[in-house]
């Protein structure tokens, strides 16, 4: 599974308006779907957040859920202009978000594999202090690609 290949430039927003947690989630979802379908995804994501924040620490969050509103795995990335309170594990505000939405029927369990991979990549991003580094969506995809190559070599 190659994360960089699942990313698309038009779903990477590196100057997302900061706001409340719910608003930031909503902005990200609307990069993928609109209207009633987007609202369903937002409701499910917020229920997921109530179970425990997907803010994994050091400024990164990975909001995720399965939803009937999508037909295939969808990913959006956002970096907020200012850090946002996300009730993260380490209580630190979040500025980089990976949104992952999977369909209920998910052959090959692509959803969980992708989630695991994103967690791994997120840890590399924080370790190397790369959150603010990419200046364009293209830079961001290149960065993810490089990190993945590095991780593959280590194995």
């Amino acid at each position, binding site marked *: 599974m190659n994360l960089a290949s699942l990313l698309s430039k038009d779903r990477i927003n590196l100057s997302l308006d900061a706001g409340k947690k719910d608003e930031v989630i909503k902005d990200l979802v609307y990069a993928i779907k609109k209207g009633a379908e987007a609202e369903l995804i937002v*409701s*499910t994501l917020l229920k997921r957040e109530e179970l*425990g924040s997907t803010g994994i620490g050091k400024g990164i969050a990975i909001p995720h859920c399965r939803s*009937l*509103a999508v037909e295939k795995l969808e990913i959006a990335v956002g970096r907020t202009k200012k850090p946002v309170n996300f009730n993260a594990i380490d209580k630190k505000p979040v500025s980089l978000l990976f949104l992952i939405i999977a369909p209920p029927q998910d052959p090959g369990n692509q959803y969980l594999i992708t*989630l695991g991979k994103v967690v791994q990549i997120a840890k590399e991003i924080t370790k190397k202090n790369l959150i603010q580094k990419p200046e364009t969506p293209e830079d961001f995809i290149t960065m993810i690609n490089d990190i993945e190559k590095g991780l593959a070599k280590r194995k």
Partner: protein
Amino acid sequence: MPDIVEMHLKLLFDLDNLISDMEDESYKKIGFQIEEAASDALINKRNQLLRQLPRELGEIYEILKKRYRQAIAPVESEFCLGCFQKLPTQLAAQSQNILTCPNCGRILYWRPKN
């Protein structure tokens, strides 16, 4: 099906998938935190949504969920994606009501046209 019913049904379905992921060992291994009290609240919320559905629909949903785990299936090019059987053409045409697949019984869902 009326919009509000459809909305409740879809959210119920999403929440049930959330609950089953939360209990899935391979999901737990990824390492996201889950608070015990909040997961009880989620189950309450799902039960509340179920009660808001018309009684018959709620009962069908529960039976199908037990049988298939996923009670709802999308329709694509007149095929039920639950059992991959072709649906009768006249069924596909009247997608305003609550319809079930004549083959597997799953509640059918038409994706909005973009």
